[in-house]
């Protein structure tokens, strides 16, 4: 295929004409409505999708914080009693009960490890 063949091929076609409504849009629409079409910006959609994917991945990769251990309500009530049922004592009592529970679990794990070492 030579240059004249390409030019002949090009001349068998021509760029499409504008749509019929363009003239009306340009000449009759209020000026503030003319400057932009209502097409959704593809890059904005892509950015939103990327953000959603990133957040989704983050949610699946980062484990949720450990659920707080179940609190022993009786122990909490006892501590509240010890604190004289002062204002805010319920919060402090719950915190102390959780710390005690956690310390007890650590001590139990340490004892189990020590027993395992002794057996070996």
């Amino acid at each position, binding site marked *: 295929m030579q240059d004249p063949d390409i030019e002949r091929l090009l001349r*068998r*076609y021509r760029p499409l004409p504008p749509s019929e409504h363009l003239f009306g849009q340009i000449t009759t629409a209020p000026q503030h409505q003319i400057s932009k079409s209502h097409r959704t910006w593809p890059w904005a959609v892509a950015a939103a999708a990327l953000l959603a994917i990133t957040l989704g991945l983050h949610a699946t990769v980062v484990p949720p914080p450990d659920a707080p251990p179940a609190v022993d309500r009786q122990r909490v009530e006892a501590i509240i009693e010890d604190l004289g049922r002062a204002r805010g004592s319920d919060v402090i009592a719950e915190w102390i009960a959780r710390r005690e529970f956690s310390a007890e679990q650590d001590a139990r794990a340490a004892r189990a490890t020590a027993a395992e070492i002794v057996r070996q």
Partner: protein
Amino acid sequence: MGDDAGDDRRRFVAAVYAESGPRLYRYALMILADRQDAEDVLQQVFAAVLSKPALPRIDDEGAYFRTAVRNAAYSLLRTRRTARDAAEQILEPVVPGCSPAEQVALEQALRALPPEQREVVHLHVYEGMTFQEVANATTASINTVAARYRYALDKMRKLIG
């Protein structure tokens, strides 16, 4: 906009569009290879005229609007972030016996060209400009224009076979 100046501008825009709208649209379409973008550019250009407090003083309307469309089209290309739909039709047959396969191949070859090369092909082939006239219209040297045309035809030949 109901004032006399506004009506004048609308009449002026309507007259220019009736005279040159389809030609300007085809020019924008060949630079951008996207119909919606081409419409956006034309609306932007004419809206700019409508928004002026007075009609611009224009000696050569054809050249004025062609340059305005060109500037708006390349400005849009600079901000364009996504590829356009390669399946969208940008040409229409003007002679009988054109095959859809031939048209698709030609459109794909045109899309593969840089906008500057498509622009030169358009102005030379479809608007019948000489290379010197294309150079004047695009503020490029005649050598640059001739080289762009040569590269464009070489690439199209390779792609179409």
